[in-house]
């Protein structure tokens, strides 16, 4: 399969669609709702029968099965599960869960209904650009549908009852993934991050909890889930995100006006390495891709497919590379193949 066809076949909607608010800076918006069936032990404590029962109960609530497919984790290879994480369709936690952990994925790959993750049910919606409202609306409708058939664990004071008390209340985790190279280059990023954490939001790297901020990509999400309504939560996140985006845009302007040589040097060196390297680690690739993306955004580089960044940050990940080449690859071989894929995408005019 050619690389083009491979991308067409395996890219999710959020990786493809270029339009939408701040689509050059906001890579994706994500909504996640945690829900549990009343009285059945949470997945970690449930026995196999109970987990099987949960899988069956939730699966039976999925109405229009034509639009969804079910993937049972235990029937997938480790690489395939990894690929789902790299596409942000499932959480890293789901990979290692039990025999009856699985996910219902819609055909557009915008909706994932995870079963037997940390909670019985995790409804996730991922959309391109800054679009938390639509994400919440979609998640809400799915939630209503499931809830019309199942009794949730719910308490008047505590809200939705979750396996971990940090999700109590709305069970909502909303996040936006943003690309902030200019804030990093102008060394403003730490000040911004400190401010963000004081506003009740959390900042993490591209692959969630515990991961570092590779490629100048950060995920900003709400910390508090109790005492704020769903709308308040996404409203707050949206406002803060917008301010960060404005800072990023100002920093870009500053670089263009006051520091253009340094900027051009950064962008063209990155482009030079990526279009000539024969071996590259995922860390270096992400970092350099970030500056090429900045160059494309500022129209310093042209002739590059506008979706290249979102596609490449996923395709150059280990799980995806192995899928592309249809075999297990050692880390050395992966570095070589990664360089090959990047050269091919960047050379396309």
């Amino acid at each position, binding site marked *: 399969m050619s690389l083009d066809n491979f991308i067409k076949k395996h890219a999710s909607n959020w990786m493809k669609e270029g339009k939408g608010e701040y689509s050059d800076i906001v890579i994706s918006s994500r909504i996640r709702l945690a829900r549990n069936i009343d009285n059945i*032990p949470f997945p970690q404590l449930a026995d196999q029968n109970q987990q099987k029962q949960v899988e069956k109960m939730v699966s039976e609530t999925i109405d229009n099965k034509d639009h969804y497919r079910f993937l049972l984790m235990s029937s997938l290879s480790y690489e395939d599960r990894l690929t789902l994480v790299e596409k942000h369709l499932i959480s890293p936690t789901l990979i290692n869960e039990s025999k009856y952990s699985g996910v219902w994925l819609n055909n557009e790959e915008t909706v994932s209904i995870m079963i037997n993750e940390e909670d019985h049910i995790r409804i996730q919606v991922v959309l391109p650009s800054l679009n938390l409202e639509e994400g919440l609306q979609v998640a809400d409708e799915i939630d209503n549908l499931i*809830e019309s058939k199942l009794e949730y664990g719910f308490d008047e004071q505590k809200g939705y009852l979750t396996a971990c008390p940090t999700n109590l209340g709305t069970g909502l985790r909303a996040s936006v993934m943003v690309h902030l190279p200019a804030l990093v280059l102008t060394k403003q990023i730490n000040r911004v991050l400190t401010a963000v954490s004081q506003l009740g939001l959390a900042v993490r790297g591209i692959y969630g909890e515990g991961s570092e901020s590779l490629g100048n990509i950060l995920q900003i999400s709400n910390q508090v889930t109790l005492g704020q309504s769903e709308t308040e939560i996404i409203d707050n996140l949206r406002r803060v995100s917008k301010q960060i985006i404005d800072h990023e845009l100002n920093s870009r302007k500053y670089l263009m006006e006051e520091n253009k040589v340094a900027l051009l040097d950064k962008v063209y060196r990155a482009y030079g390495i990526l279009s000539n390297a024969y071996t590259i680690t995922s860390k270096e690739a992400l970092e350099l891709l970030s500056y090429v993306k900045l160059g494309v955004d500022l129209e310093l580089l042209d002739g590059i497919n506008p979706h290249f960044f979102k596609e490449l940050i996923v395709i150059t990940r280990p799980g995806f590379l192995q899928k592309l080449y249809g075999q297990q690859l050692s880390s050395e071989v992966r570095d070589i193949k990664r360089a090959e894929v990047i050269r091919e995408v960047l050379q396309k005019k």
Partner: protein
Amino acid sequence: MLCQECSKRQASVHFTKIVNGEKMELKLCEVCAKERGDLDLGHGEHFSFHKLLAGLLDIDELQVIGEKVIEKVTCKNCGLTEQVFVNSGRLGCSTCYETFGFKLNPLLKRIQGGTAHVGKVPVRAGGKIRIKREMQNLRDKLNLCIAKENFEQAAIIRDEIRQLEKETERGGS
């Protein structure tokens, strides 16, 4: 021994992971382990949170004062014991929130800012909450009527309460 991933460098890191309930051991070199760590997208933050929570839950003032073993609570729905809860900081089922509320509630104030849920309410629970509130309202009225010796009105309210009780018994929402 050599790294199981690259077969080139010396293995120095042991990696354990659970796949399909089976424990898998991997011996990797530092380079590959780092890459794996990259893939496995650690649960680090969660882990430390649970440890922290567990640490806070473990302060048992009664025990310290009494210096004797006090009978511990167990969740009658999922069987989670107080000891396991206190050690792990994780709950076992939705009923656990009632069972261990006495330990958890003071901490929730710190974690979640001490406020009550104001967001979405599931339709089913919504009905129950509505009935619960209505019932409380009627009982207050009933008490007031009895206090005022307005027994005629009290009888009407009593019937309304009975009607509502019947509805909830039928599982009506």
